[in-house]
């Protein structure tokens, strides 16, 4: 294996000190001279209503109030908090039906927490007091909490642009019969020896990032709109704000603050439009907008819930001859990522096994929930819960070992990936399955738990997954990077890739050091400044290391090339004759002929004219490498997960005993960060399977908008957790790396569900699998 200087080493993360000391400055920590506070007044008592009357007169007279703003006071275009419109060509966007159906303040409340008006005041207290004096009269409208309700012909229309409240279905122009797939599913299914089929429910899961949303916006005296935000997509927010307020991009600045977790919650815009709209109303004054946790909950995006039907046909030898599926999701009140999840949910399905034929329908309907958007996995968790349970049911019918079946039928190198036509360049899933099975003691435990009696029952389950590294070719994947060498031979790496806590900037710094041949500490990553950073599509689809890292590598190689070209000139040789050690460039075989990188860089900047000769003393010009990088693949990572659970058959309580998550990561740039990402993902995946769901009363009011009643797994709920990094360098990823950001959440979902099946012989088809559902299922089954 190649010897690297920094790649593959778990050096301390560059932001670790500021994070653990609490000195990191998040947007909520920032204070500016003359700063005002913006309070968004939200509709809390209705999930669907029309505003009949809005009276701001009393609020406006409250002490400390600077301005009150209703829907008619806002001069901004309607918008879409998602970003898919930036990621596809306009005709494709039109075909997909992407629309901009959001406004800063609304007169048609589409979910609890929709924004009605805003108060700008000298203090947060004054803004809150005034907010209490806003008088709103509502006309309640029927509340739709499922697609089946909102699709009814007499239902109130969320927008005239989406008749029947169907926000999205796969467009027929791109997908014949509105379905993704291949082959003749009907024929293959009819010819199948047996089928497994069910309709599952997948829950509305919240990202639960630690930092609630917070912003400062300023329309400054120079006529520039500035926004401080912890978005995970600064450049997308940059252009979206410019379009929304009819400003050229040169008059909009987005400054990215320290991000306290993303997981998709900050994919696109959230409160930036509101904060900026308020700032536009008070030019020259910064306006700070802080979301409470509950606001974050009811007014920002979460995972798409819904009903997920799937049918798989098998031949006697176990071949999966056909898969047919429909994921009908509940969109929430606005379109946002309307087309994205409904599509990708099927792509993860198509990419996993060697289906003889495949047909996936994805559609989403408006409902009166908080809008659904991006959440780690982007449809993959939903598919894993459904597909992997049905595969397990089939293995049970076939009487085959679930690990062996998966090894036989999963796709691999050369097969079409999630996007037909783009093949898998690498796959180490078999090794993941083998090492994971060995680590948990698969064979022994499957046998040991086969015939249990008694109150407590144990089970082990397996699940596999594929994900992606960037969304090429479906979506635009583009990152630009500038690598500027300072005169002391250190480097400034400028790019707009986000570090959301996942350690991306540390890994990018490692990539830069390796590619330049400099020391890790010689590198500084300059990100988060839309003025100085070039284009980057933002942190989505687990792309930051695969695409951003490749951009860094390419820009650094560009800089290094120039460095070597100049060294060759100084040493009067060809670049091929040169090597660099400790930042000194040597002519090979002549150790006395060398020049330091520092001297080349310094002479490029301090390029004086020699008084005696009148000549310049070296080669002028500060070295800058540049890359505008577009990948040619998406090198999906694979994983196999094994879970062991114990179920109390008298109470339905489930205890997680052990989880082994074996991941094909290509090459781990920073192994500790990769493990951390996968462990965090496992925590969220197990939460999806067992405890996490936002739920509503019949009026659409959220019943668990805080951590008191929305239950994530805490430290004491976590099982023994083993993460296995299977390193099989990808031929296309930078230094062989594939993604690890989202992947960890996916396979634990199916593994836990399948462990339940193994323990009880019963499948629970509605997530989360709570004690209540387990006990009910046992009862329905007449015991276990």
């Amino acid at each position: 294996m190649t010897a690297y200087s920094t790649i593959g080493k778990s050096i301390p993360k560059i932001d670790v000190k500021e994070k653990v000391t609490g000195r990191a400055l998040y947007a909520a920590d920032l204070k500016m001279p003359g700063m005002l506070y913006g309070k968004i007044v939200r509709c809390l008592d209705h999930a669907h209503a029309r505003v009949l009357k809005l009276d701001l007169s009393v609020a406006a007279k409250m002490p400390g109030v600077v301005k009150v703003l209703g829907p008619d006071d806002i001069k901004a275009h309607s918008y879409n908090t998602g970003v898919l419109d930036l990621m596809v060509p306009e005709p494709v966007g039109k075909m997909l039906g992407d629309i901009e159906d959001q406004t800063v303040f609304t007169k048609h409340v589409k979910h609890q927490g929709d924004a009605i008006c805003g108060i700008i005041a000298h203090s947060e207290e004054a803004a809150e007091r005034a907010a209490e004096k806003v008088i709103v009269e509502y006309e309640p409208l029927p509340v739709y909490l499922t697609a089946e309700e909102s699709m009814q012909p007499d239902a109130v229309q969320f927008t005239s642009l989406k008749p029947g409240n169907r926000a999205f279905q796969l467009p027929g122009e791109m997908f014949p019969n509105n379905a993704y797939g291949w082959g003749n599913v009907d024929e293959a299914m009819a010819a199948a020896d047996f089928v497994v089929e069910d309709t599952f429910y997948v829950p509305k899961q919240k990202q639960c990032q630690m930092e609630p949303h917070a912003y400062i916006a300023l329309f400054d005296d120079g006529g520039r709109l500035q926004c401080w935000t912890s978005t995970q997509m600064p450049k997308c927010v940059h252009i979206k704000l410019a379009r929304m307020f009819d400003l050229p991009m040169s008059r909009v600045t987005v400054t990215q603050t320290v991000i306290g977790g993303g997981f998709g919650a900050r994919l696109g815009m959230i409160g930036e439009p509101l904060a900026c709209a308020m700032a536009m109303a008070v030019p020259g004054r910064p306006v700070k907008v802080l979301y409470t946790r509950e606001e974050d909950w009811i007014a920002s995006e979460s995972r798409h819930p819904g009903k997920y039907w799937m049918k798989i046909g098998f031949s006697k030898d176990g071949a999966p001859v056909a898969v047919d599926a429909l994921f009908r999701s509940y969109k929430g009140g606005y379109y946002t990522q309307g087309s994205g999840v409904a599509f990708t949910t099927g792509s993860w399905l198509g990419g996993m096994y060697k289906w003889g034929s495949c047909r996936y329908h994805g559609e989403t309907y408006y409902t009166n929930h908080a809008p659904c958007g991006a959440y780690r996995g982007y449809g993959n968790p939903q598919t894993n819960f459904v597909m992997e349970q049905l595969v397990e049911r089939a293995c049970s019918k076939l009487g085959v070992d679930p690990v062996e079946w998966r090894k036989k039928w999963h796709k691999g190198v050369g097969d079409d990936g999630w996007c037909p036509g783009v093949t898998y360049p690498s796959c180490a899933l078999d090794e993941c399955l083998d090492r994971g099975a060995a680590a948990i003691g698969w064979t022994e435990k499957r046998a040991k738990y086969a015939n249990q009696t008694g109150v407590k029952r144990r089970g082990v389950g397996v699940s596999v997954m594929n994900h992606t590294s960037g969304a090429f070719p479906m979506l635009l994947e583009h990152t630009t990077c500038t690598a500027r060498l300072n005169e002391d031979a250190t480097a400034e790496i400028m790019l707009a890739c986000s570090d959301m806590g996942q350690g991306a900037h540390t890994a990018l710094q490692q990539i830069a050091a390796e590619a330049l041949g400099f020391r890790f500490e010689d590198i500084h990553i300059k990100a988060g400044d839309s003025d100085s950073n070039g284009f980057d599509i933002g942190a989505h689809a687990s792309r930051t290391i695969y695409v951003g890292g490749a951009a860094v590598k390419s820009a650094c190689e560009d800089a290094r090339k120039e460095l070597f070209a100049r060294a060759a000139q100084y040493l009067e040789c060809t670049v091929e004759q040169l090597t660099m050690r400790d930042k000194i460039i040597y002519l090979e075989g002549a150790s006395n002929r060398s020049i330091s990188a520092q001297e080349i860089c310094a002479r490029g900047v301090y390029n004086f004219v020699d008084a005696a000769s009148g000549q310049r003393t070296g080669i002028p010009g500060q070295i800058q490498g540049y890359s505008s990088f577009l990948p040619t693949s998406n090198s999906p990572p694979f994983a196999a997960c094994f879970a062991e659970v114990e179920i109390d058959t008298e109470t339905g309580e489930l205890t997680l005993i052990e989880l082994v998550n074996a991941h094909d990561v290509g090459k781990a740039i920073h192994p500790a960060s990769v493990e951390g990402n996968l462990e965090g993902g496992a925590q969220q995946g197990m939460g999806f399977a067992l405890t996490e769901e936002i739920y509503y009363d019949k009026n659409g009011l959220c019943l668990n908008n805080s951590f008191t009643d929305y239950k994530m797994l805490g430290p004491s709920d976590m099982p023994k957790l083993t993460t296995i990094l299977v390193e099989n360098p990808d031929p296309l990823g930078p230094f062989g790396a594939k993604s690890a950001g989202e992947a960890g959440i996916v396979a634990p979902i199916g593994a836990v569900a399948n462990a339940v099946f193994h323990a009880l012989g019963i499948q629970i088809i509605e997530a989360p699998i709570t004690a209540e559902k387990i006990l009910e299922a046992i009862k329905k089954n007449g015991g276990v």
Partner: protein
Amino acid sequence: MSSRVLPDFELLMPKDLGEGLQLLSRHGSDVAIMAGGTDVLVMMKANYRSPYVMSLAGIGGLDHLDWAPETGLRVGALTTVDQIEQSGAVKQHYRALWQAATLFATPQIRNSATVIGNLLRASPAGDCSCAVLALGGTVVLESVDGRREVAIDDFWLDYNLTARRPDEIAVELRLPPPGKGTGSAFRRLTRTHEDLAKLNASARLDVDGKICRTARLAMGCVGPTTQRLPKCEAILVGKAIDEALLKTLDDVIQSEIAPIDDKRSTAEYRRAVAGVLLRRTISQALAD
């Protein structure tokens, strides 16, 4: 919707108990009394309003935790759940309370929350409350007119309503000394480990040889207050407790509880597992 901004209130900081009682006699029901603050402050951020908040923090001598074989346990108004958890005496003599304290909320909350605060919150899901009800004992209430003791059985009047009068401070909880054959236990069911109970139960049994002489059984989340289970208790008293006897509780308890559907569970589930939890709690108390 909660807020980072507390509503307007006047903070009262009495220096001693006498001053505190005087303030209460003057302002009475307009005062929210704050000990650990883990309920009051959270409620205030969620729009609970009280013209006055009286902190007990400045009053000395209220954080005692005294144990004596003759008099039993005395728990002060400012004694935290963590103090209970750290106490060897509580662990040895009042196992149910100790177990409740170890499971209660999170370490951070246990450092601040008080046992008496848990009683005063009068939530049917209170873990320490459930243990205290099984253990028996009294709450000492003091006003400018003097002291009175209210048995824990009479302390909760309804959901979020106690026998404390607005001019009184609950200064102490007294638990009787355990007898020779006394054992107790606390158990609960939750969604995750760090959670409010969806069902909790506690038992105190006085066993003589193999015969159960007295039984105090308490259950929470099955009615407006944490409650005793007298019919189940009656089944145990005078008998040797074995599996067959315990199994009969599954049916009997059904007529003693009235659970509802709420955020944490369903009435159906609570009914289905109430007997299981009770049986296990009793078995655990027998093993104490």
